[in-house]
């Protein structure tokens, strides 16, 4: 059985004047432990699909099943969500931020704190639990946000362009960290991005989206030799450039089809 299955999902946004189709007939399935990417231009409905997977709102039509159950009706917490910015609460310390999810789930305070300490260690931020977010750099804050997401032990991680607000060097380092951490914890992940290189370096499979309305245009399997490497090493591998070229041409052809 597939871990996550998306069946015939359509979504339309309504306003007073218009009904805008955002997603059209999306079908895909993800196995446990896979890392997949949604790649595409803005307006292709990537983030909408991610929100639907997260169960934030129901799709206009179609179903999303996680381990055979609809995501909207699940009781237990199964989704971890990371945003473009860290959105750490500035009035809470890093420790309080990381244990926030556990606090809401009414976990034991002592146990939560030791989980937080271990996670901070794992993301390379030992000893900052009493500091406030403003005392940390952008990269450190995004790492703390990763620890906060992992703290509730979600079944699947949804990453909504989590590296796009960072400078290039920090972004490369963080890609490696996220990739290694997710592998170590055996997490399934979906990354939304508009960065071709990032999607190749990080994922096992890439769904290329077309816009107006958002739909899956093509699926690329990342070759095995790249999957085994860290994102940074993958960027230097010969297969990386060839896949980059293939996807680039595909994206170009998509743009031409709009302008034509």
């Amino acid at each position: 059985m597939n871990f996550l299955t998306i069946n015939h999902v359509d979504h339309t946004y309504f306003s007073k004047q218009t009904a805008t189709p955002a997603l059209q007939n999306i079908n895909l399935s993800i196995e446990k432990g896979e890392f997949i990417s949604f790649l595409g231009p803005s307006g292709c409905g990537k983030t909408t699909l991610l929100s639907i997977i997260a169960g934030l709102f129901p799709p206009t039509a179609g179903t999303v099943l996680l381990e055979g159950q609809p995501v909207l009706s699940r009781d237990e917490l199964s989704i971890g969500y990371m945003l473009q910015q860290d959105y750490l609460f500035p009035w809470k310390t890093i420790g309080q931020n990381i244990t926030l999810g556990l606090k809401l789930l009414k976990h034991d305070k002592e146990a939560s704190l030791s989980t937080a300490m271990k996670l901070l260690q794992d993301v390379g931020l030992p000893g900052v639990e009493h500091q406030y977010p403003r005392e940390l750099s952008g990269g450190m804050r995004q790492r703390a946000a990763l620890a906060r997401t992992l703290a509730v032990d979600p079944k699947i991680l949804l990453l909504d362009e989590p590296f796009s607000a960072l400078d290039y060097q920090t972004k490369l380092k963080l890609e490696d960290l996220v990739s290694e951490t997710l592998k170590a914890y055996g997490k399934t992940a979906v990354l939304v991005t508009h960065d071709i290189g990032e999607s190749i370096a990080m994922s096992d499979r890439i769904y290329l989206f077309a816009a107006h309305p958002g739909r899956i245009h093509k699926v690329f399997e990342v070759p095995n030799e790249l999957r085994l490497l860290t994102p940074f090493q993958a960027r230097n591998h010969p297969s990386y450039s060839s896949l980059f070229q293939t996807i680039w041409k595909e994206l170009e052809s998509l743009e031409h089809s709009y302008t034509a």
Partner: protein
Amino acid sequence: MNIHTLHNQYKAALVKEKRLVRFYQLLIFIAFFSGWEIASRFKWIDQLIFSSPSKIWSLFLTKISDGTLVNHLSITLAETVLGFIIGTLLGTLLAAILWWSPFLSRVLDPYLVILNAMPKVALGPILIVALGPGFTSIITMGAIISVIITTIVVYTAFKGVDPNYLLVLQTFGANRFQTFKEAVLPASFPTIISTLKVNVGLSWVGVIVGEFLVSSKGLGYLITYGFQVFNFNLVLLSLMIIAVCATVMYQLVELLEKALIKNDR
């Protein structure tokens, strides 16, 4: 020149500027009161109406020694503080209810606008008849004057909280109460504090007007009494005391602000 001496110079410049500010503040204070005293002594202004600092001071000393001033002041102060606290808490509570139910907030929107535009002190006579001429109706005046504006301002702050913070909580499965407690309320503390600062002034207005109407105790009573017997020393003395007390309350709110908002830069 090394960094250490440069740093010391920088610190010395800061201290110097601070002293200069204090000096001019003190200068204005002294100039105002001595100017007032001199103008009064030389009859440039009408002594009967504008009194003089020395007369106010001697009245202050007599009123302190016979205990009447402390009595009036403590009553007014209690009324103001209670009115202030009730007004702010009730306003914040109403704002929370409006945030809780967007439907209710849409329904009540025009009524809030009307209530806010209406001069609340005009309700004074009705309150006094309804609640009796005393403590309760005056506190109600102090509260009612600030409650609607607090509701409107705080509700706007609640609505303005970055939706991504709410999204983070939603992905953790937080319910509406948890969302309010963990994100909406703490994110709105700066706004709540600034309404507190406004409410300090408003509650004094409400309470003094209330005492004008009831006319039995308090600083507002001293003002109307002084006016009726044409004792403007008494009117100005009461005004000075109100100014001092309002300033102290304002400073206390600022202390609260420092304690509550830990993440200011």
